């Protein structure tokens, strides 16, 4: 039972353009969502998060949007840079309890 889904395994974007990574979840108990960036053979690093009381959170070039009714969130990177090339994971948890579930990841390639 995949509670957090990233349906696009890969995404290719031109440098300077917008990258949009999508994530869907099924568990209505989830109320805190996170995005991570991961390079091969390394642990993921935290990028940005959003709680269910918000629909948008922005940090520099990164913006996360949450649509609770659709159980969908997205990460926008503007402008995209070659250094953004990595695998991006979305994750979800409930504020009560410890479970933290990740999606399958989307490999972003930003071409110069």
């Amino acid at each position, binding site marked *: 039972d995949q509670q957090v889904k*990233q349906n696009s395994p890969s995404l290719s974007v031109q440098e300077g353009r917008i990258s949009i990574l999508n994530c869907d979840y099924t568990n209505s108990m989830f109320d*805190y969502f*996170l995005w991570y960036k991961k390079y091969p*053979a*390394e*642990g*993921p*690093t*935290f990028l940005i*998060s959003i*709680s269910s009381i918000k629909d948008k959170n922005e940090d520099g070039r990164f913006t996360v949007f949450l649509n609770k009714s659709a159980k969908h969130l997205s990460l926008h990177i503007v402008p995209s840079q070659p250094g953004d090339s990595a695998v991006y*994971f979305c*994750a979800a*948890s*409930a*504020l*009560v*309890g*410890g*479970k*933290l*579930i*990740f*999606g*399958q*990841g989307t490999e972003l390639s930003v071409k110069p």
Partner: protein
Amino acid sequence: SQTIHQWPATLVQPVGSPLSLECTVEGTSNPNLYWYRQAAGRGLQLLFYSVGIGQISSEVPQNLSASRPQDRQFILSSKKLLLSDSGFYLCAWREIGGGTEAFFGQGTRLTVV
């Protein structure tokens, strides 16, 4: 500041041998602790998580077990490894409460031969 240590970085083990991976956290108390596995080309699969000493939740029935003998120590074990246990194992911690980010160790690349 908080730090997380995970070792070893790489491990090659024969089928049927035991496994013990250790993770320790410094600079925080009573964290939530996690073990994840990333199989080749796959996502991060939650294996175990713990909200306190001796409290272990298992997400996937499998050949592995976890223990938390001390507040900031989390151990992943197996009595007999299978080929399918190969993968990249990641330990993580976060503040109790659920509304914060998790911080990951550098991972252990396990190859079962």
